[in-house]
Structure formats: structure tokens, C-alpha cells
């Protein structure tokens, strides 16, 4: 149950540049420290070792940036959203940049469950001549191989334009398909015996 005396601030931020190399866990630690440095009146959980109440959007793999990333922070007193944003920006490195902040309804879904559809853009070292998406992707989880059916996750068809590939994945009951694993398979099939493609930039450009 949401505490009616608290305020949930949803922050949109960008993970870019060198910091695209951070893992999800590293990003969550960094965001927590940004909130602490910002001086905002963040809420702490109850219990023996209290921690900051944060909720994060779906994880990004190492090496993948994002322009529309999101996290929620719960505040114990109201601070105008624009003012909160400025405080966060003052405490943030440029490559992990809060772009927008707004309050969300206490009853609405947390950032950790509210977003299920991700659109990615991959920039390569050279133009593609064809784009072939795999039907299945084999991933290794906790030492076990697992075969994922791409159709369970892929929304529409991947498209390409010169050196740029775009695709959208959905997560749901079947779990989720890692964007980097999917892209790797696509590029392997699409290179077809030629030099493997090099990834120059990999971004999540939309989250819904």
C-alpha cells in the first residue's frame, strides 16, 4: 500500500557516452548516490537496515545506452518537480543525465513494472545489405541453456537504414529477451560470412 503522506517522483534520464558501459546494478547504485547528493527529502524503508525507496525501469545490458530511461524516487515532502529536477541535475554526471521529472499518482504502477516495450537502435561500422532476424535465440542463464522464441518478444519487424538497425522487444509472461543477445544473432545472420559487424553505438530510444 502506498503511503498517502509520500510523493512519488518519476525521473526520465539518459544513459549515454562512456557510461553506456555500466551494468544495470552499477546504474542503480549511481542513481541512488545522485539522489543522496541532490539533497531531496527521499523516503527510507522501514526495518533493521533502512534503504532508499527507489524503483527502476527495465534493465539495460552492459554496453547499451538509453535516451528515455526511467526511475521513481519516493519523497517524504513535496518539492516542485522542476526544482527537484535541477537538484538532481546538479548531482549527476553528464552521461547519466536527468532530463525530466514529474509526480505520478500514488496508485499507478511503479517504474519497475510499468514499462514493457523497448525500442532499440544499433549503429554499425558499415551499412547493411540485408537484415535477417533469427527465429530463436539461445541464452545461458545460471549455467543453463535456454531457447527463446523470438516471436514471443519481437514487436513488428526489425528495420534498417544504412548503418542503423531498429527493433522493438516486449517483455511479459515469457520473461524477456536481452536486446544485446538478439542484436548479436541478427548481425551474425546478416553478415553472412563477411567481416563481422562492429557495434558503434547501441541505445534504447523508447520505453513504453
Amino acid at each position: 500500500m502506498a503511503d498517502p503522506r509520500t510523493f512519488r517522483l518519476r525521473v526520465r534520464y539518459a544513459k549515454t557516452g562512456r557510461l553506456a558501459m555500466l551494468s544495470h546494478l552499477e546504474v542503480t547504485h549511481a542513481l541512488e548516490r545522485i539522489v543522496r547528493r541532490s539533497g531531496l527529502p527521499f523516503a527510507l524503508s522501514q526495518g533493521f537496515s533502512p534503504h532508499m525507496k527507489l524503483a527502476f525501469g527495465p534493465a539495460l545490458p552492459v554496453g547499451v545506452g538509453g535516451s528515455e530511461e526511467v526511475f521513481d524516487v519516493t519523497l517524504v515532502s513535496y518539492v516542485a518537480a522542476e526544482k527537484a529536477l535541477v537538484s538532481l541535475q546538479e548531482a549527476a554526471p553528464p552521461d547519466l543525465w536527468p532530463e525530466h521529472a514529474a509526480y505520478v499518482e500514488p496508485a499507478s504502477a511503479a517504474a519497475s513494472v510499468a514499462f514493457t516495450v523497448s525500442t532499440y537502435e544499433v549503429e554499425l561500422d558499415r551499412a547493411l545489405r540485408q537484415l535477417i532476424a533469427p527465429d530463436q535465440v539461445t541464452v545461458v542463464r545460471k549455467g543453463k541453456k535456454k531457447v527463446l522464441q523470438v516471436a514471443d518478444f519481437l514487436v513488428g519487424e526489425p528495420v534498417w537504414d544504412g548503418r542503423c538497425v531498429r527493433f522493438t522487444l516486449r517483455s511479459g509472461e515469457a520473461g524477456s529477451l536481452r536486446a544485446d543477445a538478439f542484436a548479436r544473432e541478427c548481425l551474425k545472420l546478416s553478415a553472412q560470412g563477411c567481416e563481422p559487424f562492429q557495434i558503434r553505438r547501441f541505445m534504447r530510444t523508447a520505453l513504453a
Partner: protein
Amino acid sequence: MTRSDIWADVAPLLRGVERPGRYAGSEWGAHRPPRDGFAFCMVYPDTYELGQANQAVRILVNRVNATPGMVAERAYLPAADMADAMRDANVPLFSLENTTPLREFDCIGITLPHELCATNVLEVLSLAGVAVASEDRTEDDPIIIGGGPCASNPEPYVRAFDAILIGEGEESVPEVLAAIKEGRAQGQERAQILKALAQIEGTYVPALHDPNAEPAPHVRKRVFEGFAIADPWEPMVVPFVECVHDRLNIEVLRGCSRGCRFCQAGMIYRPVRERPADAIISAVERGVAETGYEEVSLTSLSTTDHSQIADILKRLNARFAGTGVRVSIPSQRLDAFGVSMADAVAGQKRGGLTFAPEAGTQRLRDVINKNVTEEDLMEAVKAAMGAGWQRMKLYFMIGLPTETDEDVAQIGHLADKAFELMRTLTPPEARGRLKMTVAVNVFVPKAHTPFQWDGQITPEEARRRVGLIRHAVRAKAVRVDYHEPKTSLLEAVMSRGGREVALLVEEAWKRGARFDAWTEHFSEDAWHEAARALGLDMEAVAHRRLDVADPLPWDHIDSGVTKSFLVRERSRALAGQTTEDCTFSACSACGICAPEGPRIVLQEERGIHG
């Protein structure tokens, strides 16, 4: 000339290596200086995770950046996968701030935090594209300087470094850099610059110092006398990647004069200098606000000895109540006061309580001057049980000078006795949760200590003595923890070897030795092959017992603590006589304090705490 930024060459490698975030820089608190003008690169010779929190790197980068006309950046040794990828792609070692190749810096400084990083120093230089031996460097190469705790016996490192700075670097590093800058500006040759460096107090230039010359060279350790009045808030970099000691570290005092006779830090960081409580508290407040850390550690060799520690912890706890910020102290004194201080810092109970009696009998504890009694230990156990701890860890050393089988067996009996007390103080239904660990390490003789003349025991002997402890322990819940360290021989060799060991390091590195401190990387074979090739007997270096009249390889390094004090301490040790801590009682004339020189700084009288 503008230094280059090779991020474009580095970035593609990062997609194929583990935890690439550690090579990306851009951390909070890191500053990207301009890429021209005189520049220094401070290197930690191990991975980023291990070195990020290193105090020397943090302080010296700050000091150099605060000196007009020079800038500093940082670098770490890449993990093996990245180092290999860099070699394959011909990418040289780079600094984190500007991704500048190390060889473009005017000076590279490498700290020597422990005895097992010597081959890593060579790995750093080789990845940087700089000749690994000082004598092979050309006029265009950066000047390579070293320093840190292991520099107190610099001989095993003399081939790699152009100059080695002895003691605390706060003032000497900017002085040395200013001299290099000056020399470069005047177009001087390397040899001339090194001559100028040798004139700076505390600077050892191996090429100019022949240890066998008459009169013998003499290099005096530097002490940062302004330590106590300097702001304890030392700006710091907050890493993205999880690192060791990843928290807000505030250095509250320097030095420790309890005088444990095996402890090098206790000898080389004298005299004790405390920082004032008020300054410490404002430094913590500022640090928490600027870093966003939720964990604060008050660091030093003996934090609980600070004359104002009870007051400091009380005020910090009050200040941060309800904010989620936790304060911790690294080491507890083995007595009831130590426990009450540990109890004053919240959240440490989950980790259990750790004490270091070091030896099993009062006789041997007197020999090593570990001024704790069995009663202290039992009082500490009582206090710990009263405060709700359920796990204890006791550290012991084996192979200490004069140790007998009786001393060793008593380690087991003492642990049993302490555990029995834990049990009687705990209600029967909760006794199942009680645990005690006895951690056993092999004594490594260290330069500049009263035990520098004593040899190390052999691995077979160490195994036998651990067997005695295991045999002596009765209680099932007492676990004896001993990992046979293949590296302790090497530690002893690095700690007390002479110039011949510098060549050994180079030969071992050529045979593939690197990351010697990492069990999964340590290559015993590389070292033994190198020793064989050079006809050097590593065992003899480690195990030989010297006479106090014998010359020592580090005799030319003056730690401020006189050799006559060490000799005196050694004879007191053999006579079973203890020496009191001069910060609690009278001066024992170790030699470091001088009318003009450094002085002990205490904020209040240190006394018996209640």
C-alpha cells in the same frame, strides 16, 4: 604539445571485456584536466576495483592538481582480459580522465601498497610502452617514480624506478614534480634531472646511490607535519563499478605507536598525529553531501585510540540518525572499550567481531609487545556477548620469533576458552548460533621492525604448527582457518631482499608472473625458474636469520625510527619485556620526534577509557 585522447581506440575493446565500466572513467568527483602543460599520472599497480579507494592515489592526485602549473590523472592496471586485448590491438595503457597514453605524461608515479605488486609494476610499464628498466629509458620517456609502504625497503624495486620517494608524499611529490618540470623546461637531460631529484629530501635515486659506497648513502623518510591541521575532507572519486572499500573514507589520525614488534606500519608511520573531532565531523558531513555515500569509515591504523573517538562517534550517530548513513571503524581494540566503540557504530554486528591477539600465550604476546592479556580478551568477549554479537573471529600469527609448540597449542586452548565463555553467557536455545573462527597467518619479517633480523618459517613447518592448533581445539564450533599461502615466501623475499631481488622480479615477469597477489594468477613456477636462472636462493632470503651486526639491504633508508631503538626492542623482546605506547605513557625514544622535526599530535590526553 597537446596530449592525445585515445578513447576511440579503447571503446571497441570494451565490448569484449568484463566489467568495462572500470575503464570508462567519468566518475563523480573525477576532473578532466586540460591536455597540455606539465602532467603527472598516478598509477595503482593492480585492478581498478582494488585500487580505486587507495588513499595515496586519492591524496596525491589532489595535491598535484592543487599545485599551479601541473595536473594529475589516474591509471590502474587493466585486468588480464583487457591487458591481453590491448596488446592484441596495440592500444597502450591510458589514463582514466583523458584516455591519454601513459607515455605522454611527464612523470608516472606508481604506489607500492604491498609486497606482491612488483611484477605488476613492470606490467604497467610494459603496457604503457615504457622500458621496464630505468637504465634502458630514453630522453623522451617519462620519469618513473615510486613510493608507498613497500618503498621502505626499495632495493627489490630499484631497476624499475628512476626515483623512489620514501615516506609520506603530500609535500614531496609536488616538490619532485616541480624539479622535473624545471629540468624539462631548461632542456636538461634525464641524468641531470635525476641528480636534482636526489637533492630533495626523502628521494632515493638508485642509479646515483651505490649502497656499498663509502660513506653509505642516507635517505630520510618524509613526514607530512601538517597532517593534523590539514582538512580531513579529502575530495574523492566515487566509482560506478563496485570496488573494495567503496565508501566515504575519512582519515582521522595517522600512525600508531602501540609498538607491536612485527608491524611495519606501526614503525614507519610514526609519529602519531590526531585530527581534531570538530574537523573530522565537518569533513564527514561534507563528504556525505558531496559523494552520496551512505557508508562512512573513520580510517587509520588504530581509530579506537583517537583521544576523542567516543565523542566523535556519539556526535556522528546523533547527526546521521534516521538518514540511513552508517558509520564504521576498521579495527577494534581488544578490550571492553574496543567493544563499546564497535557497539557505538551501528550495523557492524552482522559481520561479527574481529580481534587480533596474534599469539596464544602471555609470554609470546610480551615478546611481540602485543599488550593484551587473556583477561582483556575475556572482558571483550563478555562485552561482546552483552551487546548481542554471536560471531567472533580471532587472528593469530605463527612462526613468530621464539615461538614454541606450547605457544602454538595455546592458540587452540585460548580459542576454546573464549568460546566456552561465549556459551555460558548465552541462553541454551541460542547457543547453536554461536561461531568462532581462528584465522592463522604466517609471520613475514618486515624491514624497519624489531623483527627484521628474524627469518620466516618454512611452509612445511607452518603446516605442522597449524596441525598443532587444530589438534588442540576441542569445541566443534571453533573453526581454524588457514589457507596455505604460496605467496608468503615471496612476501618475505620482497620485504627483506636486496638489489639482487630487483633482477629476480624482472626475470619472473619475463616468465609470465603478474597479479602475484591473485591466487588464480600467481605463478610459483615463474618465480622459481627465474631464481634458478639467476642462481638466487629465495628460501635463503626469506628464512635466513641475521645478526644485528650484519649490514641490511635497507640500512641507507632512515625511517626516523633509529636502528638502535630496533636493536633495543629486539633484546627486550627476547627478554620478554614489553614497551609501552608513548601516546599513553612516556617516550620510549624511538627517535622520530626531534626538536625541529615531527611531533606527536594528540587532541586530548589519551587515557584509560571507562
